[in-house]
């Protein structure tokens, strides 16, 4: 089954409706990759609320989709991992590195907006990939003198305000 992809401003939203087969995932990957380029999207949200099992294969696939999209210039946020599923995933040792996570769509959009904000103010000179790592919990390799957690917290704080000026402008870029 094909995964529907919606465009929302600068971001793309893909809602996975059922258990994905390999072909579906390949299709999703190519589709997202194509649209990220076409719409110049900076963020992709993959909603997995409908998945009752996320095994190592699914994780690997989601991670590789995210890594690929990162190379295409978009940051990926996974949304809607259920409590049970999250618990099983960590028991298996699956942690979705390089991917953001949020409770629901709303949160994910916020997460992406914060990230954009952060990029614009703090890392104007740096490339997106490096700044991208700041978004992940507890890792900030490029901030000497601060503990990872602190840096992360500070980054979150600074990133919090909505991108009042920046976003609308860049959204026009997207269109």
């Amino acid at each position, binding site marked *: 089954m094909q995964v529907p992809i919606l465009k929302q401003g600068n971001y793309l939203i893909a809602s996975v409706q059922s258990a994905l087969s390999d072909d579906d995932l390949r299709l999703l990957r190519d589709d997202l990759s194509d649209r990220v380029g076409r719409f110049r999207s900076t963020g992709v949200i993959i909603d997995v609320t409908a998945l009752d099992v996320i095994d190592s294969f699914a994780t690997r696939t989601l991670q590789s989709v995210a890594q690929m999209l990162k190379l295409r210039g978009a940051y990926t946020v996974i949304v809607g991992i259920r409590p049970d599923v*999250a618990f099983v995933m960590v028991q298996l040792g699956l942690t979705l590195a390089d991917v953001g996570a949020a409770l629901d769509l709303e949160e994910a*959009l916020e997460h992406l907006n914060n990230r954009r904000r952060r990029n614009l103010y703090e890392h104007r000179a740096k490339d997106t990939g490096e700044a991208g790592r700041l978004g992940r919990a507890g890792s900030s390799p490029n901030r000497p003198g601060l503990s990872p957690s602190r840096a992360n917290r500070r980054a979150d704080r600074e990133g919090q305000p909505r991108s009042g000026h920046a976003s609308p402008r860049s959204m026009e870029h997207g269109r």
Partner: protein
Amino acid sequence: MKRIVEKKTRQGANPPKFAAHPTVPHDEAKDLLLLQFVEHLRQNRMQLCEEWIEHIAQAELLTGMSKEETFTEATSVYDNYVEALESGSVEALQAYARTLCERVIPRGGETHEVVEIVLLLRDTLARSLLRKYQNDFKVFNIVLDAYEPAANRIANAVAVSFVQQQEEAIRRLSTPVLQVRERLLILPIIGVLDTRRARQLTEQLLRGIRDKRAKVVVVDITGVPTIDSKVANHLVQTVEASRLMGASVIITGMSSEIAQTLVTLGVDLSKVNAVGDLQGGIEEAERLLGYEVLRDPPCAGTEGHTGEKYASTHS
């Protein structure tokens, strides 16, 4: 426990006696005699019940209950007990004992009293067994061998069922997930963390994150005396799983012993965000959330103006 050990030694000494009955395989004989005994118990139900209640009164158990109440409960336990002896299935008796506990405790009774009356019943029945077979010592031994393990198993099962029930209750009590602010949960952990409890805690926390839409969770382990590597890894897993659900975890109140243990064990702490005490943790969490509270209702299309406010911070 001690009784079981005693019984085993006795059983070990017994086989020569059974060898004296070569015509009947003694397992079968045992079963048959036990069934006979069960029948005897049914026939003498009232008499034995009264005897038992007398013992209960002598031992000053269940003093909070009236004679009639004690009698009703006692006959019920008796019937369940005989049933369990016959079928070997203790579940009905366990369930009954639990409900009995619920009735006894409000009257000032205690769990151990229920266990003790079950033990008294066992001994009352053993006495009756002795009376019935006192003329035939060989048969008495065989019936006793069948009766004792069954009776011990019942007593054991009843006792264990209480312990399990209490453990369960304590577990539920000891891991509350509290909401202190919107999007902020606190999970104070008190007491020793074993793997099972740690697991339950994680499940509760993750459900709490979803149900309360939490963004930050403060896990306070001030009340945790020690930690082993399994539980430590579990804590790290909890932090990870919370992240997968979009929430960040702050761990507070880590004692120097635990901190040292974690470092010595080489637990991967790169993902753990620790703050000294609960107060600091809540402050940190609020700082995290404080900026969020200022935000406009989140929605991608409607970019807020609060950015203005922060412009000075960033420039």
